[in-house]
């Protein structure tokens, strides 16, 4: 009974955060409500017994990834989003479509009564068991993800660095006065 109450409470917080992400017009508010969603999802993982996943969820998702988002928002000084014609069309078509789809999925899932229950802490996901699985059976995918992260680091550095910092195919002085000015403020062609 208590677990069901906890599940419903954190689920409600989760959905409220997700809806708040949609209705807020300022990206900072959306990012903060996404942090609320992730923190309450970590509580849901704890209810399922996945302690290590919950800890990693808080550290990596709510910590690292969201800090990256917040830094980008502050760096670009993102303001309120403006509504356009395209966004109204997307709202008119998208909201009913997603609501109908979601209700259909929920109705199907609720009426499949043979799926059984999940007890609290049904599967203790302690770090030891997860590490054994990760470094034995999933060793090759684990190593491949390290290559993926390396590529992501290099891609992020290349994409986000200023254009003149990247080695250019035709080195030399900028051709025109205008271009020299653009290069000086970091907006020149690479």
């Amino acid at each position, binding site marked *: 009974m208590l*677990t069901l109450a906890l599940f419903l409470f954190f689920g409600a917080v*989760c*959905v409220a955060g*997700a*809806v708040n*992400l949609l209705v807020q017009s300022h*990206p900072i508010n*959306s990012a903060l409500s*996404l942090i609320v969603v*992730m923190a309450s*999802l970590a509580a*849901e*993982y704890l209810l*399922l017994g*996945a302690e*290590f*996943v919950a800890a*990693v*969820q808080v550290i*990596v*998702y709510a910590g690292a*990834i969201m800090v990256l*988002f917040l830094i*980008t928002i502050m760096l*670009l000084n993102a303001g309120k*989003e403006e509504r*356009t014609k*395209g*966004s109204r069309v*997307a*709202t008119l078509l*998208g909201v009913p479509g*997603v*609501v109908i*789809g*979601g209700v259909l*999925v*929920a109705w199907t*899932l*609720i009426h499949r009564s043979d*799926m*059984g*229950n*999940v007890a609290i802490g*049904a*599967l203790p*996901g302690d770090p030891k*068991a997860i590490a054994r*699985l*990760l470094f034995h059976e*999933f060793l090759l995918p684990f190593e491949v*993800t390290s290559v*993926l*992260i390396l*590529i992501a*680091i290099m*891609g*992020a550095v290349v*994409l*986000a660095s200023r254009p003149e910092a990247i080695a250019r195919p035709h080195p030399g002085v900028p051709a025109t006065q205008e271009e020299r000015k653009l290069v000086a403020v970091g907006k020149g062609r690479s």
Partner: protein
Amino acid sequence: MIPLSYYLVLSGILFACGVLGFLIKRNIITIFMSIELMLNGVNLSFVAFAAHWHALSGQVFVFFVMVVAAAEAAVGLAIIIAVYRTRETLNVDQVNLLKL
């Protein structure tokens, strides 16, 4: 004891919110956050099924999803910075040309 379907419904709601945000939002950073929301909804169903089937590999898959999400966030935000540097806007309606 919580029915498995409740977890799946919650994960479906989160995924639907992500899809909705992807459709109706016009700020490129908020669209990116909607994608993260969808990934989180999928993660919840991974963990719920792992507990249901007593298979720990579901939780290991969550880590892979997180790795991909982190890599995607790093590269995507770098692309957003590059787009903002050339166009000085974050509105996706105004980012409709491949080359300036």
